[in-house]
């Protein structure tokens, strides 16, 4: 059915990710409450950073623990260019921010990918913390502990995306782009390379794969999207300070991926949705929500390595199997009746 309507896989991917983006926008029609709107925007921004990050952590198996630093660089470059030191239009600042983050990540990738496993995770953690401390101390560019305020919202001509409902449209467009580009990379050659690197990167090298190049590609790709998410975050918040870009921001990404389901594209999306909803539901229990989240992480890692999306797919497969079993039972009965 779906196959006949949308014959090519890319058409299906475009439609699929459009639906994810459209749901975000449509939810805005349902909620005219500003609080929930901001929640939707935050979730969307998290998705922009975390879907590409899922390729790095889930598909390739390299758990970077410093994405918070790249988010921060994106946010501060935009802040510095639009208000702190210059007065460039945010539409120009965003691409510059992306390029800065990309260049930074690419430069560090040479050193970081001499590391694997724990060493890589701790190396990226150190990089994230280093960047955080830089935000805190480089007053000229970042405003130091007080941060940067007055970051503008983007505009097209006279149309300023000033209200939260308008801003959500921009965020949704980028969610679509992040999802689609990640999908586009994950299929075919790159996807094959990423999966092989996760399974056995030495073997992949011995069979002719330029492992380092693919690792650098994906690391930079994930960092660029994290930078864009940071730029949008700055624009949403209007003012930013270092406390938003600590190691906990990096851990947050890791948590979205593991809870949602590592190694899939939709897993991180589901992780963001789930944790956003969970945060609302258990907000009344105060600090205990961190406890619940911590327990969820432990349980997921111990017993449900596929995460939520893995669980959903398993149930789906079970249901299909049951249905086809029913059907074949029916058809054998019919055959016996004849």
């Amino acid at each position, binding site marked *: 059915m779906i196959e006949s309507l949308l014959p090519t896989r890319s058409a299906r991917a475009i439609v699929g990710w459009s639906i994810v983006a459209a749901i975000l926008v449509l939810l805005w029609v349902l909620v005219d409450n500003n609080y929930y709107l901001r929640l939707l925007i935050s979730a969307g921004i998290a998705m922009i950073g975390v879907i590409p990050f899922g390729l790095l952590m889930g598909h390739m198996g390299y758990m970077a623990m410093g994405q918070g630093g790249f988010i921060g660089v994106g946010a501060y470059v935009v802040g510095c260019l639009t208000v702190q030191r210059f007065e460039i239009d945010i539409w120009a600042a965003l691409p510059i921010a992306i390029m800065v983050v990309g260049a930074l990540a690419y430069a560090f990738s040479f050193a970081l990918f001499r590391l694997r496993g724990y060493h890589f995770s701790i190396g990226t953690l150190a990089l994230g913390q280093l960047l955080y401390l830089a935000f805190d101390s480089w007053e000229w560019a970042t405003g130091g502990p007080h941060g940067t305020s007055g970051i503008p919202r983007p505009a097209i001509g006279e149309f300023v995306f000033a209200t939260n409902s308008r801003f959500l449209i921009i965020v949704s467009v980028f969610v679509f782009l992040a999802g689609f580009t990640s999908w586009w990379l994950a299929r075919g*050659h790159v996807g*094959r390379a990423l*999966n*092989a690197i996760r*399974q*056995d990167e*030495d*073997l*992949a*090298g*011995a*069979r*002719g*794969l*330029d*492992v*380092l190049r693919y690792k650098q590609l994906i690391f930079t790709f994930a960092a660029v999207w994290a930078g864009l998410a940071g730029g949008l975050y700055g624009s949403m918040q209007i003012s930013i300070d270092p406390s938003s870009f600590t190691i906990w921001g990096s851990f947050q990404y890791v948590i979205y991926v593991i809870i949602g389901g590592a190694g899939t594209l939709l897993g991180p999306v589901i992780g963001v949705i789930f944790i956003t909803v969970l945060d609302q539901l258990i907000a009344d229990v105060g600090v205990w929500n961190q406890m619940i989240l911590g327990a969820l992480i432990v349980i997921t890692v111990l017993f449900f390595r596929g995460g939520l999306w893995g669980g959903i797919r398993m149930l789906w497969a079970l249901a299909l199997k049951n249905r086809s079993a029913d059907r074949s039972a029916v058809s054998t009965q019919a055959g016996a009746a004849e």
Partner: protein
Amino acid sequence: MDPILEIRDLSKRFGGVEAVKAVSFDVPRGSLVGLIGPNGAGKTTFVNLVSKHESPDTGSVLLDKRPIHRLPSFKVARAGLARTYQKNRLFFEESVSENIRTAMIWGGAAKHQDLSYPGLKGKEEERTAELMEFFALTAQRDALPSGLSHLHRRRAEVAQALALAPKLLMLDEPFAGFSREEAFDLIDHLKVCQKGGLTMLLIDHNMEVMLEVCEYLFVMHHGALLASGTSAEVRANPEVINVYLGAET
């Protein structure tokens, strides 16, 4: 003699252990040579150095006169040097045919005109099919490595290495866990490839098989090259008897 592989002064040290000590030798083109030595002699480390899984501390490696010791491992593989592993390695989430095809995609089209063993001609699908047929793996084409018997897994690994269309294949203890019949079955396949121009360096602990099969043998001990020669020469070498053959009997 026309050497395809020239090893010069290759060394590697791990902390206090000199795993490979100034090893030099040549492998003649088209030959099937053996590398033997007791446990911990440094055979696997030697293969790792040549295939660039590890970087040598000193020394050089020439493949067809071309230095490969400074290349990253994937370029060594693409230059025509493939290897298998002592502890069997395949992509465990991929089927047998996918494993073979993957290496084919990364290795690129077969470039060496003078080779003619199975799996070199045609498109990827044909090459994969030919390799699987040659190793009698066609029935297992969609099986995951974990679902294969030890014998089939070994064959799949060799097939994956051959999918790179190498000039030189290094096999690290391919017969471990094999019966004599199974070992000779694999050897028969390898001999077919040798007729097609493939050069092979074979490592194994099964002395009986090695002495019978290899045209020329190198003996390592404590990281250094202890002796080399035909099987008759090696068999008669007092030092070899002392460190290795003597220990077995």
